[in-house]
């Protein structure tokens, strides 16, 4: 499997290198959908120059990255393009190996449940075979690397790519089963922006399950949780002390976010990311990786300065759930919404800023529509997943009491 992956990597690097050298690089790095005030490369350069001049990089409310980013780029500023291409490649490789291992776990679990007779008799067409799952890791790497959103983020040198790499490595180490390493990567990702903290719950659930410990056993949960939590706290504390600066995440105190205009009540929207963790944990406790996928999508939708780089990360997971395709009901409409909104973003921006014939309402309407499209997409996947689980245990051809075809209703 290595050769196709290497080929995909080569193609991806070529595309990015070509775009870096073209005149589009300048234009892309200023687009507001691709870079936000929290992830813009210009601000990183600004912070580094301030540091060189002996001034604190955080004065002037321009630079909002973590000190770790300063340390990273202090030595690598001349190779910035290479760094971002390597981060994308690392993310793809991490996702590739993670999904490879995950598929093995899924197949093992499915075999176990089949032997235990947990599935209804007529669900043969829903059972997944190793043959169909063979190319999924490659497809995941492909989806991530050749997604236009990822390419745009890389060419714009948005630090969102680094965040994506850290989350991808967190997923890899969680699936491999190493609590220590996954805690480190989660700490690094949370240090950069607060939202990956919510991934602690699915990570914990997965680690507990792979150790064959019953998640309902309070004592076992407690010890494992303690282990992870203490590692997390330790690492965050170390970062804090070493760098002497608070974590880089800033809830909205700056310009109007892309999602809504700044308003004190919109603070609740950003807390939204954390609201969904507990209900999802209750419903999806048997399926922590799907939970992780949904949680990453929720982060991408509800975070304070969303960009297309965040969207690209959860889009990379679509091949993993391609067995749900037959249960997805609105996929055509949603694809159209996403494509149309992506195309209308630059048009309405041009009309608002340059032509002066539209105003900010048009642009914000499109960002809202884009987010609505994403929300509907995620809920469609969620619904499809639950439906498949239901069919697996209760049989595919359901009949009501009087023998007619029954209808499944989500309550």
């Amino acid at each position, binding site marked *: 499997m290595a050769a196709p992956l290497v080929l995909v990597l080569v193609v991806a690097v070529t595309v990015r290198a070509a775009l870096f050298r073209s005149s589009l690089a300048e234009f892309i790095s200023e687009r507001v959908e691709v870079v936000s005030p929290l992830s813009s490369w210009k601000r990183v350069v600004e912070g580094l120059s301030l540091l060189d001049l002996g001034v604190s990089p955080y004065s002037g409310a321009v630079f909002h990255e973590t000190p770790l980013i300063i340390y990273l780029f202090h030595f690598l500023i001349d190779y910035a393009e290479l760094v971002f291409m390597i981060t994308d490649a690392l993310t793809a490789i991490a996702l590739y190996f993670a999904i490879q291992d995950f598929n093995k776990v899924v197949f093992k679990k499915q075999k176990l449940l089949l032997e235990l007779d947990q599935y209804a008799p007529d669900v043969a067409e829903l059972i997944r075979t190793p043959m169909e799952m063979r190319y999924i890791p490659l497809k995941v790497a492909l989806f991530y690397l050749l997604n236009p959103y990822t390419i745009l983020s890389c060419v714009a040198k948005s630090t969102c790519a680094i965040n994506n790499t850290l989350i991808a490595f967190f997923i890899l180490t969680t699936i491999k089963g190493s609590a220590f390493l996954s805690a480190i990567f989660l700490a690094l990702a949370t240090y950069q922006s607060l939202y990956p903290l919510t991934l602690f719950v699915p990570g914990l659930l997965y680690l507990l399950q792979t150790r064959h410990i019953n998640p309902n056993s309070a004592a076992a949960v407690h010890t494992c949780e303690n282990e992870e939590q203490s590692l997390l706290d330790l690492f965050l504390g170390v970062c804090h002390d070493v760098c002497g600066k608070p974590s880089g995440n800033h809830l909205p105190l700056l310009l109007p976010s892309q999602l809504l205009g700044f308003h004190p009540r919109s603070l609740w929207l950003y807390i939204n990311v954390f609201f969904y963790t507990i209900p999802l944990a209750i419903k999806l406790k048997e399926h922590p990786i799907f939970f992780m996928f949904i949680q990453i999508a929720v982060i991408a939708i509800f975070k304070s300065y969303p960009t297309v780089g965040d969207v690209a990360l959860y889009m990379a997971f679509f091949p993993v759930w391609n067995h749900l395709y037959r249960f997805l*009901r*609105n996929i055509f409409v949603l694809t*159209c919404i996403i*494509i*149309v909104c992506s*195309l*209308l973003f630059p*048009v*309405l921006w*041009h*009309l608002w800023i*340059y*032509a*002066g*014939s*539209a105003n900010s309402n048009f642009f914000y309407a499109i960002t809202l529509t884009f987010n609505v499209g994403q929300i*509907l997409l995620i*809920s469609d996947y969620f*619904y499809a997943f639950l439906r498949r689980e239901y069919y697996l245990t209760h049989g595919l051809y359901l009949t009501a009491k009087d023998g007619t075809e029954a*209808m499944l209703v*989500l309550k």
Partner: protein
Amino acid sequence: MGLLSDPVRRRALARLVLRLNAPLCVLSYVAGIAWFLALVFPPLTQRTYMSENAMGSTMVEEQFAGGDRARAFARDFAAHRKKSGALPVAWLERTMRSVGLEVYTQSFSRKLPFPDETHERYMVSGTNVYGILRAPRAASTESLVLTVPCGSDSTNSQAVGLLLALAAHFRGQIYWAKDIVFLVTEHDLLGTEAWLEAYHDVNVTGMQSSPLQGRAGAIQAAVALELSSDVVTSLDVAVEGLNGQLPNLDLLNLFQTFCQKGGLLCTLQGKLQPEDWTSLDGPLQGLQTLLLMVLRQASGRPHGSHGLFLRYRVEALTLRGINSFRQYKYDLVAVGKVVSTQAPDRGWMALKLVALIYLALQLGCIALTNFSLGFLLATTMVPTAALAKPHGPRTLYAALLVLTSPAATLLGSLFLWRELQEAPLSLAEGWQLFLAALAQGVLEHHTYGALLFPLLSLGLYPCWLLFWNVLFWK
């Protein structure tokens, strides 16, 4: 989630829409066009009105007694120009200085991608001359621009004369708060583009120009004057700018109001405002004006140097003095052609779906930036796109598709344009004009960044080809 999750209701709605598909398509097409054309009828048209009082003209006195002086200047300018062949820079500098302005010049040069047949130029170089009248009692934070574009084909000497006379008159007004820039450009639009780029310190079109020595503050508004004859029977106001941009409507209404007060005839698209709305003549004239405006705006060409100011968020107009005994020569819209084909490997229905979505997206984006162009293209392309299928009378559909292709639409609009201006074309003339228009379109894309050529050749033409592929599907 209601409609999105309830399969029974969805199926019912889908069945209803499928059954009424053809009537719904026809109805929405007809309703769309009718609604737009209804703008010419009384309940939807409005008399000239001012929407923002800040642009109002209540506190301004209108007096100007420099007519003779203007004619003298114009005669001098024409004589010097004929002698030197190009813009008489030294004479202009001297005269502007004598009138009391700060005078500066700017030289520019540009090599066009291929020789321009219409204006007969290839390597263009020239000089712009401009004078700044500083506001005596205010800081130079804002300015107005009065510009006279001089090209080799339209000497515009009367306008230069008027400009200089106005400058002399304005010298006496000491209470005005804005600087006024009097700009004379060579090679009409190319010179204006060079000046604007240097003024705003950008380089959008690859023009080589010397930097400006003197500036006057952020430009608030600009007026371009084109007067080619001594006798002016009416003033035609041109509003369409580059890529279909328009200035603030209040600016146009301001001029209409002044013209009415001063008893001067003011026309739009060469036509007067219809007076009687009761019989059929009024709405018919209104319809002609509407169609002329749609055609002009759809072409995306700047009809006068005001069109280039709009890109920099400066409200601008062009005033053309018309002597109704003269004929006007207009250059027209253009389209370039690039052939590219794409054909996915699935059924013709999937191809048609993709092509329809692509067309809808394109027309939506085009209509947002330049409504007239979007409307024109939608009127012609949508019915034939909807009809394209491999079964049925193929030759008829093929003929229809060819008739509504972007190139044929261009040809048709040229003939329609001339008809509306009461100067109809013969077939040979029309064809010559069509070819000239194609060349002009490509040139304008390179010199001013006009979007019509790339949009049509790279966007709509491939879309049309997709429909052609659907029609001839095996």
